[in-house]
């Protein structure tokens, strides 16, 4: 990984391959999850990030291990890009005790203390106040950490979005707000729920610097995130990136997608962030067929391993059901 404090991405072949690999890894992981869902290995809700991988992968490049991350219920990509163990995420999808949340959270509630990954929040907008508080702790402890908060454009209609932008700016807290604008809050298109559909304008009304980023371009996301994180670490207060993207799959596995045209989906698929990066890398001569073959093979092996890991994992004992409702005295 590049120096997280650097302002610009280093577009070396090595780095571009790492970006490509990270996106392919998320894509293949989720395709496997969809398959496992059909087999009823994974239950509950399953929200796929397919099509949006460039945002998590690009943004995480600018974050250091000391930063905090808060995500939504569509967070497999964020967890993997952040460095949460793929085995542990897969085991969590199964609900096994080896999962990153001990199996208790499932797809929507991935947590990992070792990477400062604070979930996995299934209440739209509910993670934003946590990020504000994590940023407040950074500031009060005079650390230069950033609290990065990912949320969809649907969260913008929630009061918590407005309260949090105001509070973060008022107190000049190091929060990176990343709005993943995939145009649909479940089935409700942005224009059908927002009187002002330009989200970055809303942020600007709170004096929060905001910009629109092509969320299908991983390099653009990385560059923008590096730029704003440098400012945030320098004490400029919060910033918002509105990353324009599109979810290629249904909202969840129960969604017949009556609210959008197939043609629209197909049109966005032409902007697939993985194809886009790989095409550009080929054109510039930094990607060879053998690279892609190698990436696919490595990723396939890693995912295969994770499935075996999850399959062989164990169910938490029913006797432990009530453990950790409360932390024991003296616990951190």
């Amino acid at each position, binding site marked *: 990984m590049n120096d997280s404090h650097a302002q610009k991405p280093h577009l070396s072949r090595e780095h571009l391959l790492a970006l490509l690999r990270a996106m392919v890894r998320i894509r293949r992981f989720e395709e496997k999850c969809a398959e496992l869902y059909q087999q009823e290995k994974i239950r509950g809700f399953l929200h796929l990030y397919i099509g949006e991988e460039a945002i998590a992968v690009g943004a995480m490049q600018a974050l250091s291990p000391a930063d905090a991350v808060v995500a939504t219920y569509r967070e497999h990509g964020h967890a993997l890009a952040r460095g949460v163990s793929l085995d542990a995420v897969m085991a969590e999808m199964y609900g096994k005790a080896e999962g990153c949340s001990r199996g208790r*959270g499932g797809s929507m509630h991935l947590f990992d203390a070792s990477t400062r990954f604070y*979930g996995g929040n299934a209440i739209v907008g509910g993670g934003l106040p*946590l*990020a504000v*508080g994590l940023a407040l702790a950074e500031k009060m402890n005079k650390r230069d950490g950033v609290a990065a908060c990912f949320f969809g454009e649907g969260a913008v209609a929630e009061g918590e979005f407005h309260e949090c932008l105001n*509070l973060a700016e008022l107190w000049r807290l190091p929060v990176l707000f990343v709005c993943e604008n995939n145009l649909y809050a479940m089935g409700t298109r942005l224009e059908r729920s927002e009187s002002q559909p330009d989200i970055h304008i809303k942020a600007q009304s709170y004096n929060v610097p905001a910009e629109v980023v092509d969320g299908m371009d991983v390099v653009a996301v990385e560059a923008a995130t590096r730029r704003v994180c440098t400012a945030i670490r320098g004490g400029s207060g919060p910033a918002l990136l509105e990353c324009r993207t599109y979810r290629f799959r249904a909202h969840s596995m129960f969604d017949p997608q009556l609210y959008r045209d197939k043609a629209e989906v197909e049109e966005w698929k032409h902007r697939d962030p993985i194809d886009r990066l790989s095409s550009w890398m080929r054109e510039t001569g930094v990607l060879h067929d053998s690279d892609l073959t190698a990436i696919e093979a490595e990723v396939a092996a890693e995912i295969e391993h994770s499935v075996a890991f999850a399959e062989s994992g164990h169910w938490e004992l029913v006797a432990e059901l009530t453990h950790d409702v409360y932390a*024991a005295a003296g616990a951190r």
Partner: protein
Amino acid sequence: MTDAVREITYRDAVREAIREALLADPRVFLMGEDVGRYGGCYAVTKGLLDEFGPERIRDTPLSESAFVGAGIGAALGGMRPIVEIMTVNFSLLALDQIVNNAATIRHMSGGQFSVPLVIRMATGAGRQLAAQHSHSLEGWYAHIPGLKVVTPATLDDARFMLTAALADPNPVLIFEHVMLYNRSGVLPPDTRPVDIHSAIVRRPGKDVTVVTYGGTLFKTLDAAAELAKDGIEAEVIDLRVLRPLDAETVLASVTKTRRAVIVDEGWRSGSLSAEISARIMEGAFWELDAPVGRVCSAEVPIPYPHHLEEAALPQAAAIVAAAKATMSG
């Protein structure tokens, strides 16, 4: 502070507790609406801004969800926040953060994260503040696994429960009844730690157990004094902590007295008083000589006029009557 014996109010006791916590631990800070320059809507935090500065005494915008959630996030980030919410009615604007985040994160994360957060708020009626500032919703919060709910009624508890709450690695909600702030009394200077897991017998007696907490404790003690004039010795239990509930203390008393009355400023239906009653049925049914009685608020939004507000709330006379009713069988 060196006076051997000194008279202070409940308000002063809470302020001293906060001040002591701020002095003792640099991770502790206070935030809420008007806690700084204004000094707190019930003047609890008056003077703290001057002493500790705006970094640690933080006035917030009227954004309950954001600043309560920020308290949760700051606790996750290693701080020990004390969040003040003006009144329990306003806490409903932060219910998402309290119930969906603070209460769940420990369990849902498989024990990786805890939320060492204290939320203080005013509760209860008696100041003619009408139906959006006077309710007693602490029983609702006591329904939620993952939260701890405490209701300091005495000066001791007002002074020392905060220390225990801040030492606890879990989210602790402290409910301060608005009619207690002006109560005064004598607090000895020696620090006496209190726990936040047990109920306590405030007045021993052998004839009937009267279980209560928070703002109705003193009405209940008044009622017990009244009952004593008629030769009835009521044992008054102050629950102190609504979650986790110390049923053992209640059951031990009921096993002795064989009669029980529950006094709760919350409404009767689906209330904490219903829970206590059920615990008694489950744990001491065969010990009872009479049906469990309850004195709760009338099932109305608390009205503004003094006479109607008083009529809506549990009063000593009704407690006396309910206790006598258990004796008449």
